[in-house]
């Protein structure tokens, strides 16, 4: 089975690869992984006035996992925190044309977004 063109494109030209300093103000970090396939994914957002101004990722995993997280960072930029929470893995599946066996990669990306948002909120509003 071949990867879709979009996956290959994200894989060859990953967007927003890299990282922010975790301690930095307004930065939310989500680190997730799947023991079954061995993938690990780090997704970070930088938030100003409830809007995501920048996003970065670093993924060790298969092409689909890299493409899913790369796409996620693209989508996150410019969204409000609330809008970002509505990104669903099925949106990623559709955009990247992921085959059934690779759906878990998009789930991982959604989990990473959720984890990053939760981390941001925890930092912004420590109880």
């Amino acid at each position: 089975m071949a990867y879709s063109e979009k996956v290959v494109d994200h894989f060859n030209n990953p967007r927003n690869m890299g990282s922010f300093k975790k301690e930095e103000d307004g930065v939310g970090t989500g680190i997730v992984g799947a023991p079954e396939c061995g993938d690990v994914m780090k997704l970070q957002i930088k938030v100003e006035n409830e809007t995501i101004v920048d996003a970065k990722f670093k993924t060790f995993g298969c092409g689909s996992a890299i493409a899913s997280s790369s796409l996620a960072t693209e989508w996150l930029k410019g969204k409000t925190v609330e809008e970002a929470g509505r990104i669903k893995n099925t949106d990623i599946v559709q955009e990247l044309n992921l085959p059934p066996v690779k759906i878990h990669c998009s789930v991982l990306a959604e989990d990473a977004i959720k984890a990053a948002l939760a981390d941001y909120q925890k930092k912004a509003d420590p109880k």
Partner: protein
Amino acid sequence: MRLRRVFFSLNEQEHMNRRTTGTEDRRELQMARSMCWHCQSEMAGEYFCDRCVKVQPVSKDLDYFTCFGLPRRLAIDPQTLETKFYELSRAFHPDFYQNKSDAEQTISLDNSAMLNTAYRTLRDPIQRAEYLLDLEAGSVKEIRTTPPADLFEEILELQDTLDEFRASDRASDNASTLRTKLQADRATLEQRQQDMDAQLQQLFGRWDALQDRGEATEQARAERASILKSMRDLLSNRTYVKNIVNDLVATIA
């Protein structure tokens, strides 16, 4: 014949209720057919036909614990297992069927292959647990597991260092600093493995205790499911860490 069948089912019942400690001299297993393939006489689970003494094919559904006359417990006495394995091997081994018909040779081969797989699986505590999870798969709901987040952080960092190390000039100072760091990471991961093994052992004990009590209450069912789920999570994380350690070791070798 009918009488004997009743006896067999009683025997089975007793077998289910009671923990089996020693090997049994029952020459019965769950067989593929209820009739001898050769003389068509009725069978009740013997692996040699009473009438024509031909070897019979074991059922494809025979679970490995039952195969060795063991209850579904995770602590198995290796001696008991080995003794039973040898006993069954003597019954089915292809060497003893060289002068027999093709049909018997095939059955002997199939039975032996199944027996060997069963033995290999049950002999190793981890494979044994994984097999038990397969058997009990129906009782564990497919809930996606949430492994500890700090594990992924550790692994992400490690992958970073590994990448850097792979790209570095092996003779450089940087490479030797990275190697030292990787060796420390390896020790941390191996510690994690040991912790997981200890937790697994504890779960095995809890499972066995629950099996021994043999309760059918709602609470027992819930505990059963929770033990199985924790066991599955741990086994999956364990494999994960093991693969990463292997990768690490291969890289710095």
